[in-house]
């Protein structure tokens, strides 16, 4: 039995190492400062990925700028201002769990139909970012909810007993106390947004030049990898380099998440 567990563990770690090793082996040669700062040439076979990095940052930026206020607002409303066991709260929770499990391609089709066509945003960074926002909202709402629930009820009662309004208690006590949960949610959402491909192909498009504005089409890193690997013969080397970059980014995000989680468990005492 022990042997079985160990071999399964080794298998999992082995697959990860193999994957990373393969990426590094093929990709590290291409990675250079020039690769990060120049535009792609010959449909990405040569040159760098500067415009793609900019587009990715803009898409993720739009996504977080929309999702964070909406997500935190919704979570606050659900936890602090609506009855805990009410039908409304239960329905919203159920829909969030369903939404969190919806495949990203479905979000892509929805984004294409709603943001690109109905709202007339076309293939644009804005449409892509908003579609991603819809996708990460459930994660963000759920983790903010968990963060707020973890705040002891004592704070709410003692704040109320001192004649503090719920809004004041929320800003000064509850949100700061829920911050670690919130941060983890944001990073999880960020990780999902950065790595997303399917939802973006239909919404932010393929164009690999530097975007002029948020209404311009822009190619995200993961779309770039997909395109180089599947549609462009001779694009493998740059696809590997881009994938390596993406993998590094994701590992950094995960490291921050586990660091935050560790810090949160370690320090119950916070000063503001």
């Amino acid at each position, binding site marked *: 039995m022990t042997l079985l567990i160990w071999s399964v563990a080794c298998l999992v770690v082995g697959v990860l190492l193999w994957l990373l090793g393969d990426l590094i082996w093929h990709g590290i040669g291409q990675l250079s400062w020039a690769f990060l700062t120049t535009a792609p040439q010959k449909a990405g076979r040569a040159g760098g990925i500067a415009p793609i990095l900019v587009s990715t940052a803009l898409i993720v930026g739009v996504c977080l700028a929309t999702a964070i206020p909406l997500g935190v607002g919704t979570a606050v409303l659900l936890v602090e201002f609506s009855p805990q066991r009410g039908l409304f709260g239960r329905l919203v929770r159920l829909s969030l769990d369903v939404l969190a499990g919806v495949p990203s391609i479905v979000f892509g089709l929805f984004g294409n139909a709603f943001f690109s066509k109905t709202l007339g945003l076309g293939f644009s960074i804005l449409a892509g970012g908003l579609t991603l926002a819809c996708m990460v909202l459930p994660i963000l709402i759920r983790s903010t909810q968990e963060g707020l629930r973890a705040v002891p009820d004592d704070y709410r009662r003692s704040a*109320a*007993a*001192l004649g503090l309004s719920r809004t004041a208690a929320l800003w000064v006590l509850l949100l700061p106390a829920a911050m670690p949960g919130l941060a983890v949610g944001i990073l999880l959402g960020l990780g999902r947004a950065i790595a997303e491909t399917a939802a973006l192909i239909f919404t932010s498009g393929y164009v690999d030049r530097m975007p002029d504005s948020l209404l311009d089409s822009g190619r995200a890193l993961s779309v770039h990898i997909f395109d180089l690997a599947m549609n462009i013969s001779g694009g493998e080397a740059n696809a590997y380099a881009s994938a390596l970059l993406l993998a590094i980014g994701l590992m950094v995000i995960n490291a921050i998440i586990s660091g935050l989680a560790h810090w949160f468990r370690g320090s119950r*005492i916070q000063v503001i």
Partner: protein
Amino acid sequence: MQQYPASLTVPHLSTVQTQNLTLHYGNKTAFKEITLTLEPGKITALIGPSGCGKTSFLNCLNRLVELTPNATVSGRILLEDQDIRAINVIKLRRRVGMLFQKPNPFPLSIQKNLEFPLRHHGIKSQDRINHIIEDSFQQVGLWEEVKDRLKMPALSLSGGQQQRLCLARALALEPEILLMDEPCSALDPISSEIIEDLLLHLRGRYTLLVVTHNLAQAKRIADHTALFWVQEGAGALVEAGTTTQLFETPQHSLTRAYITGRKG
């Protein structure tokens, strides 16, 4: 007994009266038809076995019970002849302060614990705030211990210090009434003696209502004592009177049984 400086402000002494106060949580009756008067400037102790509605009764007096879903209150509570439902709840809770069983400072600095509520209640001048903070900490005998570490987290204080900080935080808002829910039960004997001393020191300047499980404590500090008991599944007021009267010549057989330790 330690000497505490007198407060610079002279609080207004108020009376609280409940008339046929009944509280339900859904279908369950927490207590029913309680008519009780808290004398101005006196300490009233609320005693009785667990689950007889003492804490719930306390929570009605500052309308904190409204935070509990499906709690319904009937009857009347008068603060200085005014029905508390007619008073803005924020203003009411400023006039009726509360100290909880477990010390519950905010996860802020020692200074911010007092400053935040003061600012929220519209006191803007930093000088005035600093003055009130110092005065409040003096009141609870904590000033010397915290004056050099006001920026430290309040949660780094010991349990007894935390409870005194919470008391200072309540006093900073210049309440007329102070409700205390077993303020010593989570503390060590020395800290609880300090709190007890403080209560005696506050007598005459605030109207105090103290829930306690400790009969000896009620006897030591309270001017008036009220005994709650569970009758027909709900809390009820069995007997109320001056502490001497209640402990020496109890009128009710339950009171006699409880104070002699035969029941409860």
